[in-house]
């Protein structure tokens, strides 16, 4: 099966709220696609539509060209984790995986494999009601992996994980993508996706704001600027401005310089005998790039609700 999720023109209204408003994007195999936007932007609704749980008012969501509801043994095509709390508390984690395995015609041996894969052997035979949120996340990941599916969909998988768990999860997602699976991971915090996602779909107000690779997004947000660290920021600013540069002070001896190459900046500072400790291309953080992109939709929401 072609492991591609294709979302095309989804519309979904809940009462007065337009939850999805023309949502369109594609998730390709071989990389982690970060699905990011403010709370209420439509991430979970989109995922529920992909999984056939919610019916869209318009538009289609297909996996390898097929709607989810038409898949045979769907867990062998798509693994998903929407809500780690979706458990019968008096059933053990292993038995939770066991009924899921049986529903797809899988053997109990596969259950023990995914328990080992997610490192939850010690908790597997305890009642799931007693699990920490982090352990529930691991159980949810194990359930998603049961059918060894080429497509994986995780909604906020880092919720409730301790730092160690977050590191484990990031490595785990990367390894899944490295096996040429399509991995869609939603989050409302860019930091959780940094270093993991190779592609980003940024959404707000039910539609896609940016659909881009991480490298392109940062380059666009960084612009052609230079960061300068010096003990004499006032002298440096005067010298560079007279040479035609735009200079902004960021406080504590850090300046951001535009319109000059780094070679010219070094030459000017040297000729004026101004000492400096760093001249480097400015690099925006993913967080900054994201804030820039979503500012508009967040502000709109702030006004709408106040």
């Amino acid at each position, binding site marked *: 099966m072609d492991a591609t999720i294709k979302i095309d023109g989804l519309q979904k209204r809940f009462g007065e709220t337009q939850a999805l408003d023309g949502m369109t994007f594609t998730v390709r195999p*071989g990389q982690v696609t970060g699905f990011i936007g403010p709370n209420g932007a439509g991430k979970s609704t989109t995922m529920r539509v992909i999984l056939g749980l*919610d019916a869209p008012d318009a538009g289609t969501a297909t996996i390898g060209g097929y709607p989810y509801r038409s*898949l045979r043994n769907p867990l062998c095509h798509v693994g998903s984790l929407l809500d780690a709390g979706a458990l019968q508390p008096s059933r*053990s984690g292993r038995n939770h995986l066991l009924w*899921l395995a049986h*529903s*797809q*015609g899988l053997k109990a041996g596969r259950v023990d494999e995914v328990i080992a894969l997610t490192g939850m052997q010690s908790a597997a035979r305890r009642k799931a009601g007693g699990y920490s949120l982090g352990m529930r996340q691991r159980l949810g990941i194990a359930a998603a992996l049961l*059918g060894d599916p*080429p497509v994986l969909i995780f909604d906020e998988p880092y919720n409730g994980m301790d730092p160690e768990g977050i590191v484990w999860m990031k490595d785990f997602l990367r390894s899944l993508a490295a096996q040429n699976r399509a991995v869609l991971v939603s989050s409302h915090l860019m930091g959780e996706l940094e270093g993991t996602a190779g592609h980003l779909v940024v959404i707000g107000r039910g539609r896609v704001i940016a659909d881009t690779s991480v490298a392109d997004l940062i380059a666009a947000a960084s612009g052609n600027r230079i960061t300068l660290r010096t003990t004499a920021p006032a002298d440096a600013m005067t010298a560079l401005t007279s040479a035609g540069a735009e200079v902004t002070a960021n406080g504590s001896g850090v300046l951001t310089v535009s319109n000059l190459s780094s070679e010219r900046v070094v030459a000017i500072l040297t000729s004026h005998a101004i000492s400096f400790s760093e001249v480097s291309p400015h690099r925006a953080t993913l967080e900054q790039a994201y804030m820039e992109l979503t500012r508009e939709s967040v502000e709109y929401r702030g006004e709408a609700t106040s």
Partner: protein
Amino acid sequence: MTAGAVTPHRSPSTPERDSFWYLVHAEWTKFRTVRGWVIATGVTILAITALAFLFCDITAGCAVSSGASGTASAGACPPAPPAGPGGEPVQDAFYFLHQPLTGNGTITVQLTSLTGQIAIGPGSNGQPQMGSGLQPWSKAGIIIKENTSQGSAYAAMMATGSNGVRMQWDYVNDRPGLPGSVSASASRWLRLVRDGDTITGYDSADGTHWTPVDTVTLPGLTDPKQAGTVQAGLFTAAPSNGNAATTTGVFQHIGLSWPATRWTATNVGGTGQNGVGQPGTFSQSGGVFSVTGGSGDIAPLTGGAGVISIQRALLGTFFGLIPLVVVAAMFITGEYRRGLIRVSLTAAPRRGRLLAAKAAVIAAVGFVAGAVAAALAVAVGTPVLPRTGIPVWPVSLLTEARMVVGTGALLALAGVLALAIAIIVRRSAPAITTAIVVIFIPYLLTVGVGPQGGGNGRGGGGDWLLQATPVAAMAVQQALPRYYQVAAPYVVVGGYYPLAPWAGLAVECAWAAAALALAFFLLRRRDA
């Protein structure tokens, strides 16, 4: 571990096909891995079995005379009623004008009048005021009977109060003959022909053209100790459910194929507890016999007349059903409450199949629990039941099998109904409340209004509940047969239901199917 960059990932473990049985297997795994649900199912079985002991052990406040020392406080039980050739408790109390018949023979009479007296109000001196009238099954006619002991084999041709001519034999059997009532202008000719153990009944409106009504073989009619001699003659009986009544038949043209001997008058059963209400009389003038019999009947006893059956062992069914209904509802509301329904639907996106799998598992659990509980209840109740001192109706193995299998089906359908209701309302408390209202309230109401039920078993206050609500399925537990030729209060407390066993089950089935259809419609339409 790492696949080539351009090769799409392929699942090595993907089964080639999907199957409905995978989903049934999954739902069964879900069920058996929640300990509370398994325990509740066990409680259902235990409750029905334990209540069987309780309901069968209720003593009638009398001691069965069995030689063992009874409790001092309990009085002696009334004498046990006679048993018919089939072992069933019967009423065998009538006025019999008879003479012996040895070997084969024929008796023919013309019946010109059938009249009666019944109690119409309280009279004086403790005697009821009597007025003329007939019960629908007041009877007068001819009979060939093994002997004058109660419960012995017989076959009879008779005219009845309002059911025309009938042929009846061995208490439980009845066949209609000529319709209409008897009068001087519309007399009825009756004939019985004995050939060994076989008796054929005939009727005629004119004494010339005879119609056979039926031919029956009565095992035990010819007792070797009696050298083939039976008693044949005229009889009358006034069935009246214990009230004072008489029936008078006027016979003429009495034809016997054997040399006639003197007529002997016997009140079969005497005038005791199980005998006739008052002694009969007869007068003879020329060839005309006028025979008057007191209250009594030749018929099986009914639940309304103090017979019980092993059905009593299943009286706990509806109480045992409560834990099963709760589990059936929580089997799905537990998923709604925790969002687990979304996991179930991602595993089984075709929602009708998920619903069918869930219903199949609950039905199987309910069936096994019900059948096991009913089998245990019957096993527990059978040895205990005679201790009540109340006559026990013999129930065939086939009937017991129907009761056991039917109770399984009753629980299976109740579970499916509760499951469907739970899918419709999605929350535990309203689901369980609704299921209780739909299933248990009619049950309690029918038990409550049962005694006011109509005398013929129809039109009682609870009848429509027993025909139209899920409790109609209780009919599948009925062990006592209903005899239309015996007028008695066929009501719930006597062990009778207005619908036939499988018809009652079909009503519950219709409820479960309708609820399931609505659940399917809503489950498909809703966002999860």
